[in-house]
């Protein structure tokens, strides 16, 4: 087990977005979180990556309590994530956009930048090499020098993956990675996720596309109204009464 939450809860004002969720992320697997709209999936992600601080409960990473850590510290531990919309610097090239992803593994500062020290040169190259490497991994070398604003939606998703991978993560959280792209492209991204797992990177994703999740995920958790209603393999989830009700009953209206 790579990551674990214990009784994780998040409240906004009087609203409970995530309630008492216990969840484990298995190392080297594809873990998925599903649930109707507004079930608290994104909030749960934000809690794991440190973007939100939990109201109660704890988050552990490799046995270490990281509940109160800020997102940049968590990222340094090897936890990367993507967002539903990727904010790229559109006027810059794809490669330039990805280079900054490895920034957290470097230490050159303002001084190095102004005086062009040896460390500066070494680390600039290191980040560039890393960016090339991850772009190759996500199969984007052909658009490397294009402007980020001119690439397709699916390519942007891949750039987001590349950015996350450039941080040298052990686990990557993907927030609806295939939203807004066509089935063929979804297929491509799914196999990219499998490729990541083969590389030893643990994957955890939020998804709406049930068919894809059932095929892809090793382990699934279902959230509804902020609470965990089921957890298990795809067969277990598909046969779970509570899940069927959540999706077909009132919860499916969203």
């Amino acid at each position, binding site marked *: 087990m790579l990551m674990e939450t214990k009784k994780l809860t998040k409240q*906004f*004002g009087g609203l409970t*977005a995530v309630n008492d969720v216990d969840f484990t992320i298995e190392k080297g697997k594809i873990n998925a979180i599903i649930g109707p709209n507004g079930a608290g999936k994104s*909030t749960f992600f934000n809690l794991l990556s440190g973007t939100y601080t939990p109201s109660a409960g704890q988050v552990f990473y490799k046995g270490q309590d990281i509940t109160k850590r800020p997102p940049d510290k968590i990222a340094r531990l090897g936890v990367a994530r993507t967002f539903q919309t990727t904010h790229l610097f559109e006027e810059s090239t794809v490669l330039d956009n990805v280079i900054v992803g490895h920034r957290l593994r470097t230490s050159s500062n303002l001084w190095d930048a102004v005086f062009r020290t040896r460390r500066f040169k070494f680390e600039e190259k290191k980040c560039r090499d890393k960016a090339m490497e991850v772009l190759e991994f996500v199969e984007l070398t052909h658009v490397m020098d294009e402007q980020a604003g001119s690439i397709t939606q699916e390519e942007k998703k891949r750039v987001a993956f590349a950015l996350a991978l450039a941080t040298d993560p052990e686990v990557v959280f993907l927030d609806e990675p295939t939203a807004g792209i066509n089935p063929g492209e979804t297929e491509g991204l799914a196999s990219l996720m499998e490729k990541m797992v083969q590389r030893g990177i643990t994957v955890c994703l939020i998804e709406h596309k049930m068919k894809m999740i059932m095929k892809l995920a090793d382990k699934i958790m279902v959230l509804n109204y902020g609470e965990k209603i089921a957890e298990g393999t795809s067969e277990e989830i598909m046969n779970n009464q509570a899940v069927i009700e959540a999706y077909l009953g009132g919860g499916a209206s969203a």
Partner: protein
Amino acid sequence: MDIFIQQVFNGLTIGSVYSLVALGLTLVYGILHIPNFAHGALYMLGAYITLTMMLLWGIHYWIAMAVSVLVVGLLGVLMDRLVFHPLRNAPPIHDKIAAIGILLFLEAFAQLIWGADYRTMETPYGQVVNLFGMTATTQRVLINIGAVVVMILLYLFLKKTYAGSTIIAMAQNREGASLVGINTSRVAMLTFMLSGGLAAVAASLSAPINLVFPGMGHLVILKAFVIIILGGMGSVPGAILGGYILGFTESLGATYISNDYKDIIAFLMLVIILSIKPKGLFSREGF
């Protein structure tokens, strides 16, 4: 004790003006999330238009004010149509810069037309009255009454009319408002109209006890920003309350601390508030 009462009354008077200006600012912010830096210029123009009507054509104070409200309100609408509407999907930094551009233009425009001199506005209400043991000019009393009347009218408009309720609906949820068929562009125009009108009322009421000059909006608008941060950006009651709080603080501060530094009070308040609560008072953590 007499001084104290006098200062409370002064605070009330200044506060009324601040509240009116802040109301216009907060309405626009609530609807469009634009900090309208040009609002101070609308205030300034409001005073000049009233003054010009009175001096040039000898129109009565109240009628001149009504004309001013209309003209400045329409100017607000024009601003929305020409500048803020085209920028509605631009990054937030653009609105601010555009607003600053409008501010600079309107100020230079006022200077071109009316000159850089400080002018006074004479009203029929210069006489001194005795009120609860203190002395004040009728004009000061009118500022207080006028402000309260305008606030009540605004409240009734927002709560009791359909047009007003669309403003509230859009302030609460823009997408929702447009989904239920509210024409958001029209609401935006209406809000700018109200906002400009409020600025004109505030300026026309307060000009007789202050001076009229092209830069007269600077301090007022800065303080109005402090007020809406104090009262919650976009909150109508917050703007009123915040305006009076600042009015009192300044009036008492000027008497008991230092008259030279009274203008700093507002900004120090802001610095302290934002130091403690970076998202302003009354902010909720959003989703």
